[in-house]
């Protein structure tokens, strides 16, 4: 990945990249071909959905080179949460309070996780939630928030659906509030181990792979195009 000086007059994408460029490592060329972009598809399991009290319970991530999922390059860690693991959530993510208590704190895995994300565009399903919690953990540790460009697969999916609907007035599909499971099923992706952070990241990566193929049919060929339509709100 080479660093380039960004022209000043460009809009938010430039600001986005400039931010990234100023941080030490990650530097992205906004006109990089999607096929050559390094992506990291992430997912987190949380103790709950309230950022103030709940925290990250596990982190899963898998590396993609362009449209290729690198099966051997994944990341999965269980994290000792700050609070209790609510017993009710165990049935969802399968991480028991005992297991969680024995796990290292977020601080311990932080360097590893940062290294895994370095120089890569972050991708996730409803990735805003993951980013809020991850950045929350960073902030608590006195670290800067993640500066990587971020792409939301649900947003990309919704954008593609809208394009398809424009082309076909009788389309009765409704994509905007599709859950990860429904989305996976729609794309014919097996969902054997849902709600494990790595497994969900892997499923998300497979969905993203197919979305990229569809998106290229609508002229999305460079990472800047992708960020334009699929940056989380």
């Amino acid at each position, binding site marked *: 990945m080479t660093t380039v000086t960004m022209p000043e007059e460009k809009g938010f994408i430039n600001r986005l990249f400039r931010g990234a460029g100023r941080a030490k490592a990650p530097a992205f060329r906004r006109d990089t071909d999607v096929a050559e972009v390094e992506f990291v598809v992430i997912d987190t399991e949380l103790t709950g959905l309230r950022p103030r009290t709940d925290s990250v319970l596990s982190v899963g991530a898998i590396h993609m080179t362009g449209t290729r999922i690198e099966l051997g390059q994944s990341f999965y860690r269980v994290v000792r949460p700050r609070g209790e693991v609510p017993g009710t959530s165990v049935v969802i993510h399968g991480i028991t309070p005992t297991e969680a208590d024995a796990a290292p704190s977020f601080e311990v895995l932080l360097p590893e996780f940062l290294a895994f994300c370095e120089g890569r565009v972050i991708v996730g399903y409803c990735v805003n939630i993951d980013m809020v919690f991850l950045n929350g953990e960073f902030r608590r540790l006195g670290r800067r928030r993640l500066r990587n460009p971020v792409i939301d697969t649900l947003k990309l999916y919704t954008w593609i659906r809208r394009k398809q609907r424009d082309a076909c007035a009788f389309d009765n599909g409704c994509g905007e509030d599709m859950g990860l499971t429904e989305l996976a099923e729609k794309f014919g992706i097996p969902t054997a181990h849902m709600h494990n952070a790595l497994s969900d990241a892997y499923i998300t990566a497979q969905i993203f*792979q197919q979305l990229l*193929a569809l998106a290229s049919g609508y002229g999305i060929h460079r990472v800047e195009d992708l960020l334009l339509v699929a940056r989380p709100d």
Partner: protein
Amino acid sequence: MIIPEVMEFLRGTPPFQFLADEALQQIALSLSMEFYPKDSIILRQDSKPNAYLRIIKKGAVKVLIQSEQGEEVLVDYRGERDTFGLWSLIGTDRQRTTVVAVEDTICYLLNREKVLELLDTSAPFTEFFLKSHLSRYLDRTYSEMLSKSMFFGGTDRLLFASQVGDVATREIVSAPETVSIQNAAAIMAEERVSSLIILDSAGHPSGILTDRDLREKVVARGKDVRLPVEHVMSSPLITVESRDYCFDAVLKMIRSNIHHIVVLREGQVHGVLTNHDLMMLQGASPLTFAKDIESQQTIDGLMPVSNRVNKVIGLLLKEGAKASNITRIISELNDRIVTKVLSIAEKEHGPAPLPYCWFVFGSEGRKEQTFRTDQDNAIIYADPASEAEARAAREYFGPFASFVKDALLRCGFASCPGNYMASNPQWCQPYETWARYFTQWIHTPTPEAVLASAIFFDFRPVYGETGLASRLRSHLTASVKTQDMFLAFMARMTVQTRPPLGFFRTFVVEKGGEHKNEFNLKFRCIAPLVDILRLASLETGIEETSTLDRLDALRGKHRLVNEYGDEIRHAFEFVSLLRIHHQLEQIEEGIDPDNFINPDSLSHLERNTLKESCQLISQVQDSIQNQYGPAIRI
């Protein structure tokens, strides 16, 4: 859970299933996964070489090859757990095929380094890819399209296509372990070999002594040459199976840093393969071969050369040659052998009392021989001027023809069961008699006469006074053209044997016996095509004898050829190639080659092409039947 899932998939995917879990895990970790939407082009022919072996996890692809004429030909379909991209990956110069997803397809991608590592270290992996992919890619229907060095340039390709046993030096020289170094060296010098197989007391090979051992372990170290050879021989023996591809041998030789490798066949020493043999692989060309024939002065010298013809066929096939090219090259080589035999015979028997011409007919006459076929030959000599000359001719040509027959027999040409050979006095005659034979057959077309015509009318001269044969040809062409009755009989014979296709486009096969579920490809498909072109040539007065030459000569001159010419050519090439492959397979298995094909053993593509060929033959036969009308209804 990603990696275990991939491993589980690989466990059910050949050849990965043969690998141990540890190796499988290493592979799984190195894989990447790619999605290709329906109709997308995964690999494009002539683009940069691809860097991955792709394993289809889900979906299906089709493999296309574009010919030099720009025509795209579907070569294969691949489905789940099949792989593609191997040869282009190994070739490294450019992508050989175009691969298109026929449905949404997900592939696992195994990188080049890993593939090469596996080819190098895992025998089952190597075997699977070399055998299954080689036969699939190089030996199949459209291999002719690949002939223009599509797969490997020159020697590389031969390394992949030739079996060790075909290339290795067969003459092995051995000595017991107890022999002294000095004596061993003396044996090597005496026998002019660069390696000596050393046998233990039980007679089993225990090591090899090479020039290099003598140089490095004896001379350079001042070793006592009276010591037993076992002190300096290379041991344990590094061996390779005679059925392995040369590529395997090269890998082993490179890995062990040796220049000699012992070739085993069923546990026995079969020969030695040296790096020199591998270099000489390029010399296995028909050209080198022809030179070899030329340089022989005796039948004994000619025999071993002649018996190598089958190997040339194997090599040509594996290089993806067209059937018609193969048979032409083989005919050319056989002609040279026959010519050589005749010139040796002339030396033995003195000059002939009258000008004569040695001519051949049947498949030899059509230049459509594949593996060594029967002798079909005859002598035509100039009309004797007196009874004394006639007697002299009979006395000369009789023993002369017998000598040639025996010599050819020793060179691997079986004698003709129908006794259509010059050694039979009936087929060793002056011009006048031959002309009378032909006239008789044409004017009185008995079944025997029509059969003889079908055999003899494809004659062509090979040696001697070719003018005699040309005169006979002109005589035939002039006599037959107006003989509608004879042509009708020929036509009847031509439509009599139908291709083995049933009403519902299923193959009609033998219901029992030795060839149950098979049919005779030569009798049912090749012969009808040959007959069709022979009939058309006789009708039109075309003098060519090869089926495809006849086809070319008849263009614009004959209704059937104008209408079906290209299809007939394609069908003929296809069924001929099928037959050659079938026979080569049998020869490699040590079985006598026959013409019986089991349609179930063919690939989908081959089966369909064969069906189309059969339908075409039927159609042309119907057309002939209509042309000649009820007279030839059977």
